[in-house]
């Protein structure tokens, strides 16, 4: 099946002269018409976020990338179907990714260990880099010990910046339940990290 070429993607100028990116929803309308350029825009916009979310839900990097690939495959395959719903695109995307993460974690049924990516600033001195890595390892390990739903709630709200209502929608629970998961997660993290207070860089 050849992708139909729709109108080229343009960045609109709004009233004050600033440029406005096309919305997710308008891009998805084009994806539904098999527009590969629109699909690629969606990938560029969300790939890093989805990989980060999957990795922070404590999948290793390889699995996080598999989840991302499967998520975007569904964007392409189910684009036309998504366009018939009222769901906000970002919420739907995270829901797909979350469900894939949960499936994998349930299949694995073991305590995951967070892999800490090498994201150190090259300008930091050697000692600072080691220190930051140690801290990241401690934090990663503490997050890895959290129950699956607490990790997901923390990843969605703290790291991915979703609102509590949107995060609740992604996890298909109430806002109160999200808040409770977050409180418990932060309490556990504080307890886990308390023993290493001297090792954590302020």
């Amino acid at each position, binding site marked *: *099946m*050849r*992708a139909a070429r729709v109108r080229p993607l343009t960045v609109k100028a709004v009233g004050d002269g600033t440029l406005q990116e096309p919305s997710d929803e308008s891009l998805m309308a084009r994806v539904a018409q*098999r527009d*590969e350029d629109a*699909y*690629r825009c969606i*990938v*560029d916009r969300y*790939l*890093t976020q989805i*990989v*980060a979310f999957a*990795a*922070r839900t404590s999948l290793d*990097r390889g699995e*996080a*990338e598999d989840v*991302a*690939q499967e998520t*975007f*495959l569904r964007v*392409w*395959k189910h684009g036309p179907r998504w366009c018939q719903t009222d769901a906000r695109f970002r919420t739907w995307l995270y829901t797909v990714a979350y469900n894939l993460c949960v499936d994998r974690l349930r299949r694995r049924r073991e305590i995951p260990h967070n*892999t*800490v*990516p*090498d*994201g*150190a600033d090259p300008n930091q001195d050697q000692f600072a880099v080691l220190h*930051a890595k140690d*801290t*990241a390892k*401690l*934090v*990663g390990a503490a*997050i890895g010990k959290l129950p699956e739903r607490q990790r997901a709630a923390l990843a969605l*709200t*703290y*790291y991915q*910046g*979703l*609102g*509590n*209502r*949107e995060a*609740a929608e992604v996890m298909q629970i109430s*806002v109160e339940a999200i*808040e*409770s998961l*977050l*409180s418990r997660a*932060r*309490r556990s*993290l*504080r307890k886990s*990290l308390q023993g290493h207070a001297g090792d*954590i*860089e*302020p």
Partner: protein
Amino acid sequence: MSDDKGGKMTPNDDPISETRLREIIAAYGADPVRWPGIAADHADDLLRQYPRLRATLSEAQDLDAALDQLPAPEPSRALPARIRNLPRAMDKRRSPGLMGSLMSVVWPAVPLRVPVSVFGIAAALGLMVGVLTSNPSSDLSEGPVLLGDNLVSLVLMIGDM
């Protein structure tokens, strides 16, 4: 960023109690950007109103600082290109190839398996007829036993193929 209980606080709104603000800090951390709507909008006022929460806020700030040390996992270099090209890869996997294209010209509007099956059955029948007629001893008058032998040898032949 949090959007529950959003909107502006008006004189008619229920004020946020100290207990509620403590819960909000416990769940969302020290940065008001992450607090739900009304609390985020009035963070400074609320913190001024409840000075006893300074210690709670300070604890939350320490935890936020630790959480911020965890770097964002980046996708590997090959991943973006692989995912960007998924539609093409899917199209390629679905494309019928040379044989499939030829078959669709010869026998359009039916799935490929139909002409393939018909061709297979025709070949098997042709083979059977060929074997039966090329054997000089395959005289039907020799009776059902010989015919049966021929069929068995045919089945064995097909099995060997």
